[in-house]
């Protein structure tokens, strides 16, 4: 079963929640889809890491065959091609790899060639199978890396796979939750957190995914705009993680709280039980 962890707003605790849930789940998989800024591996410190390159296809035009008709340039809606100095020049970063230019070129002058944009690293951390996507610095879109990450599940279907999503709600988040069975929305007690929670609630609904909310950094006795948001809309709350200096210290050092204290282990275990109950 795939459980996606997302948040809209960054820094609400997606990675901290994902790695702790994976650790209390026993045999499980953790997949880091935040390919722009992957951090789960810093916590899980996987061993026996195998790295595979991820590439996309980009076009190249053969100047000997090209007759300068510019049909490719007119076709490309991503403005990835220009005709200059008697040849077609391709801006690789702008290309979406649709392959259209190669199909439509009347001279068959265009061929496609792989270009590396990042890598997928697979390793093991105790019982947790860890897969991390890393986009190369300077690249614009990590979508193909996310697709590759989720292509081959590293555990069987009965086991849990935790998908740590990028922040926001755009294409990379959609790709990450596409095959999720349940969405865990992590939020914080600020008006920013509540505002962005609304966006991922809408996203989960648009994809017909069941979901629940984790109220992170909750301060007892203080107003929690995210909690108010949930109670007004009858959105299920999976658990509450208090703002706690010890937890913050452990997390800032990229250590795993559920491995360091029975209290935190129990807290994440309960959250996991609530998720499993909702998906049963």
């Amino acid at each position, binding site marked *: 079963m795939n459980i996606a962890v997302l*948040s*809209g*707003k*960054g*820094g*609400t605790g997606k*990675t901290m929640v994902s790695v702790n849930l994976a650790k209390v789940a026993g045999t499980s998989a953790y997949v880091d889809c*935040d390919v*722009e*800024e992957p*951090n789960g591996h*810093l916590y899980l410190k996987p061993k026996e890491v195998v790295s595979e390159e991820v590439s996309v296809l980009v076009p190249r035009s053969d100047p000997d065959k090209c007759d300068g008709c510019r049909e490719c340039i007119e*076709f490309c*809606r*991503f403005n990835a091609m220009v005709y200059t100095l008697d040849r077609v020049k391709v801006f690789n970063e702008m290309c*979406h*790899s*649709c*392959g*259209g230019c190669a*199909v*439509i070129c009347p001279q068959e002058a265009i061929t496609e060639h792989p270009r590396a944009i990042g890598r997928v690293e697979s390793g093991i951390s105790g019982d947790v199978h860890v897969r991390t996507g890393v*986009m190369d*610095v*300077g*690249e*614009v*879109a*990590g979508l193909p890396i996310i697709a590759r990450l989720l292509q081959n599940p590293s555990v069987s279907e009965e086991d849990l796979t935790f998908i740590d999503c*990028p*922040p*926001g*709600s*755009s*294409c*990379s988040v*959609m790709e990450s939750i596409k095959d999720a069975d349940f969405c865990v929305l992590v939020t*914080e*007690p*600020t*008006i*920013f957190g509540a*505002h*962005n929670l609304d*966006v991922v609630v*809408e*996203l989960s609904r*648009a994809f017909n995914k069941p979901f629940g909310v984790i109220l992170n950094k909750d*301060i007892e006795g*203080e*107003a929690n*705009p995210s909690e108010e948001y949930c109670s007004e809309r009858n959105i299920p709350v999976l658990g509450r993680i208090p703002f706690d200096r010890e937890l*913050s*210290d452990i*997390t*800032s*050092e*990229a250590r795993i709280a559920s491995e360091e204290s029975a209290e935190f282990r129990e807290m994440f275990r309960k959250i996991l039980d609530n998720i499993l109950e909702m998906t049963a």
Partner: protein
Amino acid sequence: MKQLLILSGKGGSGKTTVAGALIRLFEARACADCDVDAPNLHLILKYDGTEERKDYFGLPKARIDEGTCTMCGLCSEMCRFDAVNVGITTTVDARVCEGCGLCEVICPVGAIEMRPAVAGDIRLFTDPEKGIFSTAQLRVGNGTSGLLVTEVKKQMVKAGGGEELAIIDGSPGIGCPVIASISGVDMVLIVAEPSVSGLSDMERILDTAKGLKAHSVVCVNKADLNARLTKRIRERCEEREVPYIGEIPYDPEAVKAVNRGLTLADADSPAGDAVRDIFGRVEELLFGETA
């Protein structure tokens, strides 16, 4: 017009909080929120005056005319984004259609047309006292955030071009919306978080900005939450020859201020003092010693 962009790599390190405070302290009369996925700056800036709202059209989406379609399946076969499904009818999943237009060109019976699609909205606030504020919200299920970021910045420059300084709040990450937001700015202020994750993310955003030849400076937010990593970030900045311009302590009052719709600049607290120091450094670096 000088442009100052606030970024962080890692989300939640305090970009918007710092941006809001600097806007207040500089009395910046041109501002923009380029975090079009999850915009928040408007929640603390509170502009009065007029609001102009326009539809933002991303790339067009394929639309298949059922009556004309012969269900040959060529479009589905050729689509690299798996956006076309052949079932009882041929349908396009608009959420994954990237708008390349290949299906339109290759359809043997001309059943496919690329149709403009609203991908979000773009807003311009004009306040006689505070100046202009350009912001946008991408609609759920759309992906062309880089283009929208460019539109937000264009709108800001067009409406506020005469102003001395523009302050722009960016988005987390290092990908397309971030790269779009960096283009043309005079300084990138990176708000780093003192954690192992925050350090790693700072290195990646610094590399990204450097690749685009942007001038970056760094400050640390919630610095006292992990003194060891704050020190490490400062050392890394020295090694990379990136100006390190200040540290903001964790301040529970700051959270309360933000929830009341105020900025850190309004706070009479150590965090407020720290952000005022950072303001001084940024002013010095942007406008020179005499400013």
